């Protein structure tokens, strides 16, 4: 079983991120569970979403405390939260940030990459705060946990027409970026 | 008697519930002398059991009349007097629905 923890603010699409990741994995034959946890019911409030991926049906619905993967949609959260707490040995982190890890002030032994998903989203979708789909593309490249094709399928099913296609493009661009960053 | 599922009953059972059985020791006597058919007695009756159509035709249905005296109090020509109850109060009943017919239960 692989466990993912997503850090975001309400309104940044963390739940959609979790849903798309779970759906893509399900398309590829895995069992998947995605769920959120909220703080205050307001836009901008820090929140989490979680995903579990496994071969057998998933019974654990508690919050993910020891993730294999951490996705950070909003780098400002790093100031107030230890986003990599519990990250397993050999786990991977993917942060949406235009600047490098060092500039963010992140010190970690784990394998963490920064991806300018917000920039990509701004170019393709016209909105930097719609970085979630792009970041998922980078996640797929960095972890190999789910294929880009499956992600594109589910995002186009979720957002029909031009919106879906643009999101798919953003995913592809971020995927290539992350691939380019190497292992 | 049968108690239905959900205590379902036929409508209009309040007609069988002769609340005149609650009447206190007086009842209205309509003199039919000076009545102007102003209809105030019928309007003032809290039970709506006073009927009439034209002068000196008004009466109270003693099956439901409580003897409250409102009618006598409002009659502008004093054509209604409250007199002692003569006896013979109706029997009050509660009625519930049975598939075939009413069953009565006395509350006297």
């Amino acid at each position: 079983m692989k466990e993912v923890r997503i850090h975001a603010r309400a309104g940044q699409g963390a739940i959609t991120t979790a849903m798309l990741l779970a759906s893509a994995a399900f398309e590829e034959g895995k069992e998947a569970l995605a769920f959120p946890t909220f703080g205050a019911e307001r836009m901008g409030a820090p929140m989490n979403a979680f995903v579990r991926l496994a071969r057998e049906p998933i019974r654990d619905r508690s919050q993910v405390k020891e993730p294999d993967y951490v996705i950070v949609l909003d780098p400002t959260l790093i100031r107030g939260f230890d986003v990599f707490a519990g990250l397993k040995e050999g786990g991977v982190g993917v942060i949406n940030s235009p600047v490098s890890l060092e500039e963010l002030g992140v010190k970690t032994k784990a394998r963490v990459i920064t991806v300018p998903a917000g920039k990509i989203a701004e170019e393709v979708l016209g909105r930097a705060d719609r970085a979630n789909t792009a970041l998922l593309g980078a996640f797929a490249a960095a972890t190999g946990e789910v294929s880009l094709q499956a992600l594109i399928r589910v995002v186009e099913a979720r957002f029909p027409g031009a919106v879906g296609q643009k999101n798919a493009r953003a995913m592809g661009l971020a995927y290539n970026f992350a691939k380019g960053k190497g292992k | 008697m049968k108690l239905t599922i959900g205590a379902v009953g036929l409508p209009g059972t309040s007609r069988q519930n002769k609340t005149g059985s609650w009447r206190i020791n007086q009842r209205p006597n309509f003199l039919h002398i000076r009545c102007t058919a102003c209809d105030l007695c019928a309007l003032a009756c809290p039970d709506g059991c006073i009927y009439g159509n034209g002068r000196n035709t008004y009466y109270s249905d003693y099956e439901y009349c409580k003897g409250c005296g409102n009618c006598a109090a409002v009659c502008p020509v004093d054509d209604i007097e409250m007199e002692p109850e003569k006896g013979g109060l109706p029997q009050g009943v509660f009625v519930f629905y049975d598939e075939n017919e009413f069953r009565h239960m006395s509350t006297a």
Partner: protein
Amino acid sequence: MARRMLEGSQGVAQAVALCHPAVICAYPITPQTHIVAELADMVASGELKAEYVNAESEHSAASIVLGASATGVRTFTSTSSQGLLLMGEVLFNIAGMRLPVVLTCVNRAVSAPLNIWNDQQDSLSLRDSGVIQLYAENNQEAADLIYLAYRVAEDHRVLLPAMVCLDGYILSHAWEAVEIPTPKEVDAFLPPYSPLYKLDPEAPLTLGMYANPELYTEARYMLQRAMEEAITAIQETSHSFELIFSRPMPGILEEYRTEDATTVLLGMGSLVSVAKEVADELRGQGEKVGVVKLVSYRPFPKEMVWEALKGASDVLVLEKGISLGSAGPLLLDVRSACHHRPHQPRVSGFVCGLGGRDVTRQTIKAALAEKELVDARFLDLKADLELEGMGQASRDKQPALARGARRKRAPRKEGINSA
């Protein structure tokens, strides 16, 4: 027939739609709103031919479905927490009038203090109402119990409202694979509603008449007997469900690895999943632990619960609620089921997961570690939180924060964001 990734509330909404309700009326409240929003979309698009009525409160919503159901049609409403309590007196009325309204309660804690997260205090608090209560462990069950609820509620031996309970956020907002049957399969399982009595201007009736001391007791006795009949109806309907949908339906309860279990965990809803994980882990270490998942809380299947527990020496009831001043409602029911029996097990009660506090393996293991017989041991109480007016002795062996001690600065929160 295929499984699809759905949000729990979507699965429930689709299940409701497949049951052809004629009138849907609800008032929004976190975290149930997704269900009725989905249904409203379906009505607006024409996908679902039903009347969707907007009400100004849950009390009104319940009253509207009461009235609609009284005209002899299938109805649906949904709520949580304060909304359910606001519906309270109407639900008692719906039950007393023997109207088979089906509703979902997306379980959420009750105020005060204000809390939007999951526990089961809301539905537990209405256990006296005459409303059937069925608890879902996962989203497949949440959807499946809807079909079951309608058929059981409308069974002429029962004729009671039925409430499907699913844990707020944990289930309602979780995306997982759910199988939604075809309309044909649902129609094969659930016949059209055939009311016993209904409001009809052509043949007028009064429902829920006045009942004086001479009659009221018998009317309530009839309700109690209907609840007892519901146990049989649920069992028979579950069997029919399994035949038609080829899927398990433990309508009353489910036994997990209880055959030779000496210790049994008992609970309702999503926490049972965690209990099963713990049982598997301990079985792997040679311990004889089993789990009983109670699905039907009302009617409380006393004899079946006893049958499931009688082989155990220890029963641990885990519940997300408490009858303040006494113990957990489930504990009280389970102890009663085990009372006056030969070799009754020790039954302890644990309160956990209140207000959305995570129920983890550690939570359950802490319960298992409890040596004393307890009625309502609160699990996961924070040791470092001072509770005003409570001295150390009454804190249940957990140390209070020393007076005057202050944290120098807010610590970085671990991992999970919180407000």
